[in-house]
């Protein structure tokens, strides 16, 4: 029998306990995978807005708690458009509202019709709304399918009824779950006349993007330019909070899993004190006994991690269909999350089983063999 075979043999000899411990690890891994994927996906959705219309960078109000709360005057946006090196600037108002119980958080975009093309909007069916109409709306094709509306249908939101003039897609996935209004219509509904949420800037050919962004930062101290995910925190604290929640959830999951492994390893240790004493008396080294106990924990944890990956995948699918996340949560599966799950399983096994392993290794063989 190989040493690895002995480890498997010992695990198999206590199947029920191994299954229960594996389950604790599986729940931990599930939490790591689900929270990690949720965080990553929400980050992708949030930062996806930076890629709208292939803008080089976005302009937003500095230090808001959420990008959706950013407000920039259209006058400032006009001035941004005149900064040297700026090729094009588009302002858009973005608001969140409830459509129905199944769609409690629909993103509404206020945008001038002539800004749709640079914004990356491609009309799939029907036509665009007109700039001055106050009862027309366009739907992202995913939202249109979800609320079962098409061109010519009417829909009511926030007490106002609109006729669907067309459906569209954008170059970012969550944009396909939005609805789009003429800018003045949305400004009127949200008492935001003369204001937009975000500005999207494309620099002129040959201009240096960083230099242009710095020039805007200098000229407009109340605004911040966001060119990458790392800049995002300048205008939105949400990602920081999401990441913190992910870290907190991961730590909680680790504590649960470590408790499970520690409990099982300690029980196993107390049951096998005599056995460890015999092994020491027939010449087993302390190192080998530590390897045996840790190895058993690693095998159980890895099996739990494997199950946890599937549970995590199932949890993500459940989350995806939650009304509150519809439209903003598009799962992004990252190999790193699965790698972290394996690290998690190894870490949980090591931390959970280290104390029992060391105790087993440093038992006095004589005292151990006297135990009944």
């Amino acid at each position: 029998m190989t040493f690895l075979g002995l480890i498997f043999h010992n695990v198999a000899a206590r199947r029920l306990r191994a299954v229960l411990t594996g389950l604790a690890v599986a729940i931990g891994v599930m939490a790591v995978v689900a929270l990690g994927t949720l965080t990553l996906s929400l980050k992708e959705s949030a930062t996806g807005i930076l890629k709208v219309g292939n803008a080089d960078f976005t302009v937003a109000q500095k230090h808001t708690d959420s990008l959706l709360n950013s407000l920039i005057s259209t006058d400032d946006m006009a001035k941004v458009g005149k900064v040297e090196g700026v090729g094009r600037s588009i302002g858009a108002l973005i608001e969140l509202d409830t459509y129905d119980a199944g769609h409690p958080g629909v993103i509404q975009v206020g945008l001038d019709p002539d800004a749709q093309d640079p914004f990356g909007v491609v009309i799939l069916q029907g036509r665009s709304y007109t700039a001055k109409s106050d009862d027309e709306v366009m739907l992202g094709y995913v939202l249109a399918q979800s609320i079962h509306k098409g061109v010519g249908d009417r829909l009511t939101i926030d007490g106002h009824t609109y006729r669907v003039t067309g459906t569209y897609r954008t170059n970012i996935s969550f944009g396909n779950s939005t609805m789009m209004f003429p800018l003045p219509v949305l400004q009127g509904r949200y008492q935001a006349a003369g204001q937009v949420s975000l500005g999207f800037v494309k620099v002129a050919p040959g201009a240096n993007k960083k230099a242009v962004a710095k020039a805007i930062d200098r000229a407009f101290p109340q605004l911040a330019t966001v060119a990458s995910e790392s800049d995002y925190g300048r205008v939105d604290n949400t990602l920081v909070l999401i990441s913190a929640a992910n870290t907190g959830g991961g730590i909680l999951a680790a504590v649960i899993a470590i408790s499970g492994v520690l409990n099982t390893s300690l029980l196993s240790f107390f049951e096998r004190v005599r056995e460890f004493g015999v092994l020491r008396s027939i010449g087993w080294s302390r190192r080998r006994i530590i390897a045996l106990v840790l190895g058993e924990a690693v095998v159980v944890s890895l099996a739990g991690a494997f199950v946890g990956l599937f549970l995590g995948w199932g949890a993500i699918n459940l989350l995806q269909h939650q009304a509150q996340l519809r439209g903003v949560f598009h799962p992004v599966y990252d190999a790193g999350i699965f790698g972290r799950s394996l690290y998690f399983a190894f870490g949980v096994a090591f931390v959970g089983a280290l104390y029992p392993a060391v105790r087993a290794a440093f038992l006095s063989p004589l005292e151990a063999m006297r135990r009944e």
Partner: protein
Amino acid sequence: MSDLLEPAGQRTDRRLERQRSADDPNAITVRDVTRRFGDTVVLDGVSFDVAPGSFTAVTGPSGSGKTTLLHLLAALDHPDSGTIRVNGIDVVHLHQLTRYRRREIGLVFQLHNLVPRLTAEQNVAMALFDTGLGARQRKARAVDLLEQVGLANRVGAKPPTMSGGERQRVAVARALANGPRVILADEPTGSLDDDSAGSVLDLFEALRADEGVTVLAVSHDPRLNARADRLLRLADGRIAPVGGS
């Protein structure tokens, strides 16, 4: 009983070899060994020698210190004073205790102490980890040893399905796994019926006669004492020869 002491492929332990003195002709040398537990003196200046290839029984009433003596010889415990040499190795001052237990001695317990969830072959092979042998070599060695102790047909049996004598013979095979020159046995026949005890004692006799293995057993059992070629009696923490050479 061929090849019992030649586990092929096993590495020589150089650290242990450096501790060995060639000046001591005895298999076991005990000098002025004292062991106290609190105020109780269990062994009081015990001295004796055991010649290589002998079968020695240590007897005495309960609490006379027989098992304590065995534990000291097996380096499972330390004396308060005195010296103990086994195969020329100073056990009292030795740092490589694990290596000593693995390479120099074989331990047989009264309650056999086998792992119940492992087969007889796996129990024996357990003693062969850390010896440089591969899994196949360990298995072959374990099967060979079980054949030598008359358990060829019980290789795959687990201890709970075996008789007391069979379990004790598995324990002897495990003790022999690393080819020790000294077997230390604690009441090896105490819980066995006559047939089983006879088979274990036959085994010890064969080891002594065919392989030159030194056997030292502590025992109350008159069946064992009758088969030993030397009997030492412990009483009041002191040892006195009561017969034999």
